[in-house]
């Protein structure tokens, strides 16, 4: 009986299996790295109609977040300010700056300034700012400390804002929580990072306030 298959073919199944394992592993690794929000979204900093610098306004000038984002502690949305809010100051300061032309135009005409949205949750996610900032979750947790950004840099996405990002905190709120008076203090640190005593206080706080971040679907998806 003649040999139909040459001897090397005996190793073929093993080689194939090995190849598939390696290929599968690479594909998984690739997708995990390149297809996840951590890669695709972090660092997104589109060109804005006005190169607004948070570092200047909140860092150097010390404006409170809520001066512009007025509804952040009331509404699901933090609300980007109306041109009118900008004009409160910019009708006096830098009132002829060409960079502010879109704001002035908007104030005049009532047409909106087309800010490009950066922190974009999918349509089926119902994120609510008010409940977070009122219960000890600081702006910093999702938006980083924007007082520290380099001069001239516009807003950028700094956290993946993926579901696992949300769940990390929802599963362990004590590790992220701040003293309520520090929520809008962007240079403050989490209670857990302020020594053992404060870290214990954080755990107690979570219990006393009954901070029970939802971990079931209905918390965010409706």
């Amino acid at each position, binding site marked *: 009986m003649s040999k139909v298959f040459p001897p090397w073919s005996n190793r073929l199944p093993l080689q194939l299996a090995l190849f598939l394992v390696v290929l599968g592993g690479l594909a998984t690794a690739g997708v995990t790295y390149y297809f996840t929000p951590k*890669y*695709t979204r*972090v*660092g*997104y*900093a*589109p*060109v804005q*109609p006005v190169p607004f610098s948070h570092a200047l306004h909140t860092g150097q000038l010390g404006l409170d977040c809520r001066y512009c984002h*007025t*509804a952040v*502690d*009331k*509404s*699901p*949305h933090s*609300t*980007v*300010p*109306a*041109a*009118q*809010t900008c004009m409160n100051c910019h009708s006096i300061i830098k009132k002829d700056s060409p960079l502010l032309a879109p704001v002035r135009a*908007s*104030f*005049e*005409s*009532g*047409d*909106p*300034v*087309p*800010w*490009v*949205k950066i922190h*974009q949750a*999918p*349509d*089926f996610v*119902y994120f*609510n700012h*008010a*409940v977070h900032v*009122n*219960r*000890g979750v600081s702006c910093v947790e999702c938006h980083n400390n924007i007082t520290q950004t380099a001069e001239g840099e516009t807003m*950028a996405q700094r956290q993946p804002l993926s579901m696992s990002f949300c769940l990390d905190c929802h599963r362990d709120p004590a590790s992220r929580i701040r003293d*309520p008076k520090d929520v809008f203090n962007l240079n403050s640190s989490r209670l857990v990072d302020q020594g053992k005593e404060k870290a214990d206080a954080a755990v107690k706080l979570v219990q*006393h*306030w*009954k901070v*029970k971040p*939802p*971990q*079931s*679907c*209905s*918390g965010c*998806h*409706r």
Partner: protein
Amino acid sequence: MKHKFEHPAPSARELNGPRYWRSLDELAATPGFQEHLEREFPQGAADLNGIDRRNFFRLMAASFALGGLGMAGCRRPEVNILPYGKSVEGVTPGLAQYYATAMPARGGAIPLLAECHQGRPTKLEGNPSYLPYGGASNLQTQAAVLGLYDPDRAMISTQAGNEVTGPQVNDLLAKIRDTYTPIGGAGLAFLAEPSTSPTRAALVANLKAKFPKAIWAEYEPVDGSAPERALETLLGKRARPLYRFAQAKRVLSLGCDFLQSESGAIGYARDWAKGRRQVGKGEAMSRLYVAESHFSITGSNADHRIRVAGSQLPGFAAAIARRVFAATGRFPELTGALDRLAADLKIDAGWLDACVADLCGHRGAALVCAGFQQGLAVQALALAINEALESFGRTVDLLPSESPAADSIHTLAVAIQTGQIRSLVIIGGNPVYDAPAEIDWPVLQKQVSEVIRHGLYSDETSAQVAEQGGWQVHGTHFLESWGDARTADGSIVPVQPMILPLFNGVSETEFLARIAGDSVTEGYSLVHRTFTELNGGSEKDFRGWLHDGVAVFTGATVIKPRIAAAALAEVLRGTSFPVLSTGNLEAVFVPDLKVDDGRYANNGWLQECPDPITKIAWDNPVQISPRLAADLKLIDPRRLDKDQPATGALDPARHDINQFTIGKEQAHVVRITLDGRSVEAPVHIQPGLADYTIVLPLGYGRTAAGRVGNSVGFNAYSIRTSAGAAFATGATIEVIPGRTQQLPNMQEHWAIEGRDIIREANLAEHHENPTWAAGIGMEAHSPAIYGTDKDKPAAFKAAKTPRGNSLYETPDLDGTHQWGMSIDLNTCIGCNACVIACQAENNIPIVGRDQVLRGREMHWIRLDRYYSSGFESNAAIPEDPQVSLQPMACQQCELAPCESVCPVNATVHDEEGLNVMAYNRCIGTRYCANNCPYKVRRFNFFDYQQRQLDSLYLGPLGPQGKPELLKMAMNPDVTVRMRGVMEKCTYCVQRIQRAKIEQKVKAGASGAIEVPDRTIRVACEQACPTEAIVFGNILKEDSAVSIAKSDPRTYAVLGYLNIRPRTTYIAKVRNPNTNMPGQKDMPPPLSRLEYNQKNHAAAGHGEGHGPMHGETHGAEHAAPAHKNGGQH
């Protein structure tokens, strides 16, 4: 790593988005806003909103195709944040605002609160400040918001079909004014819809002063003024009866559908429910007798219902009156006349005697009401009976009203025929479609040289106006115009706009003000002027009125009548009625329970809502009785015999009566002839009709209603004359051989089959054994469910009782709240308001007639209507069925069968006991729907939200995208589901989350996160006129839902499955009169009779168990170790 993306600036079209979204408050608050508005909706802006949809879709399809070819889909889509240029007072993006307004409707306005999202009304609720309705609403109110965003509304004004601008319309109105002012209006006529608005009344008075010779006529196809006219005849004073059902212990309805069709029905239903809730021993539950020809919602809730043809009702009323007068000694002189009238009546005297004895036994707490469609004799007799029963001032109040200062359409018709009219202004209404057949309005209208039409829709009348070269002025929806209105009890309520006119329409008041040359033509100022004139109030009062939506009710003067026998005798003298037979049928014209007289015909939510009784959607078949069907040989006459031997098959008669095949009702088509006019229509055999009555629902067969309402059903107006507007005798019916039509019937199988999902008892049994409901059904025979925790409160059972040793991991129900619902079947009247409220709140799509025929309707709440006959034979068709109603939505089982079969965990439990759906996770296997014992899950077989319903089967080749206008009706807090996704009720999870978040925000740095009871009102609960639905936290023992659930009648549907539904029902108690014929032995309700026949007799229980069956068994099975649990 950092990426920099450069995007092009957004196009102008993208930036246009939020421009609609401005609220009226801005208008009032911001100076200079008015000017800004002019640019807000430029002349062509409406074009984007659907006029040029075809081209829009074509472009969209092309761009999607190109997008698919390139790699455009891989790029991150760019989204803009578009803040206001100038901040708007009171508006916080993301938070809803609520404003008081009112919906003008036939028979009185309904006060509302409109929920607005950035100036865009999305949901209407009843205004709780208006106490008679207590925040309840009905299905038309719930659907009204869709009417605002109807893409088929008239968007432009036209002359002879060509577009004209606003200034041209103003010129036209000025021209009419100038032409007719010198001649006092001779040759000018108006035909308007009746209105309750005081502002309009003032404008009409102005108009009449200016044009004394002009004709002002009003016409409405369904005239509700019969009771007022009867009172005018009897008392010489015009008044309107207001019933106090909460005070009435015995109610006799003479063809009066006070739970749905009467004006003020929401308040009546609410009051009536108060009397029905009182089932305790010391309380007096009310009893309802109904005599009616067609099956109304009120009839389906009656304790004793008798079928009396509409034309025979005078005889019936006379027979009742005769007995009441004999017992009370009133009107002895009328005995002869009443006897004559009642002589030909073929009604069991025992029924009449028992009913009258019961009424007379409750003098001062009895109430007789006559429906608005009944003639003078019935109205007059009802009033006289009420007087004899001492009802006035106790259960009936008479509210003085004013005679309408308007001519009838007949006067106008004569004027047109004699050539007196040169200009005709038609305001609202739709006379070409619904005018009485004998007038032949379409021909008349052509005889007028100049016709100007003001209306919301471009309808049949508009089409003819355009044909004869007339003008069509497009109007405004009530949610976009200023106005005022009166409710059924006479309170004046404001109609506030929630949004600027979407298409720059002209409101009715502004239109009239311009013709009259009023110095004020702006809606707001007109309303303000009327308010100040009527109340003399300050600006603060006006503001308060707008804010509350209702002025403080001062209490109208109430008349105490003294009816003169002579006047009554005069009324009775001219009354007689013919004997009905197959050759001399009575045609009853009823306003449809959904589209009313046809005005809501283009509302898809209402069209798709099943009729509460027939359960047919998207059609209005003629209803005939089984007796007539047998005479017409549509069914085997032997089927009417209740002793007809049973057949082996499941239930041939109950299923086959309307020829169901593969889920569709195959209706025969008949021709109905009345006075030489005939109409063809499908026929639906409806148990419970008077034998020789055929029911023709009005409001269908529209030809120019719009895409939704066109060619749905048949037009009953074509054979309706003003003499027989409510019912006409002399009709004949003939079956057209070989022609059938499919009807989308959502509930083909209407028997309960003796199952325990409906549990009913009579009041006497309830008093004897209040826990009777627990003894019915399989729980008494299944292994113990809660074991030793059986008697623990619901809160304990929900949170603590172990849920068994299932392989499937069950969640810990350790949330702060545990949600639950209780539905009281005693007070549920089956009105369907909850169905539409749910649709409006939860972005539920319309699927269209074809999909309903395939059983793919999407309603999250189904209102099951069962008939029971008590017959042992399953081949017999009942003529007098009892109706049982049951709203059925997701029951939020604690051990949900749907969850264990979902392969992707798209439906799981949350810690507060909700069975939630993560739509974005669902892959559409439909296993869950298959495993749901309640059949309450709904599947998106197509992309109903994105595709046109007539091109669903074209798939990707069909046009895609939702008209911009309809997008505005969507609730922004609820995901719009796509094709291939399962959906269902989640107890309005968006409302729960909103309330929880609001509470947490309020709590801040404290632990007070528990939402107070009654903060969350789920959509169905909020709409329910009878407060039958209660939702809340079952962990709190004093919450409304816990109190409701502690009622001993509480039971879980299919509870024996051990799935522990969070929605429970309170079993229905009927209150029959034991003196009635056939009630001597106190037979149980018919559904119970069927249950007993099916379960007990067959299982050999015998009658030995008697009424105590449940109790003994309940105790027996309480111990979990009881081994013979299932072996009975």
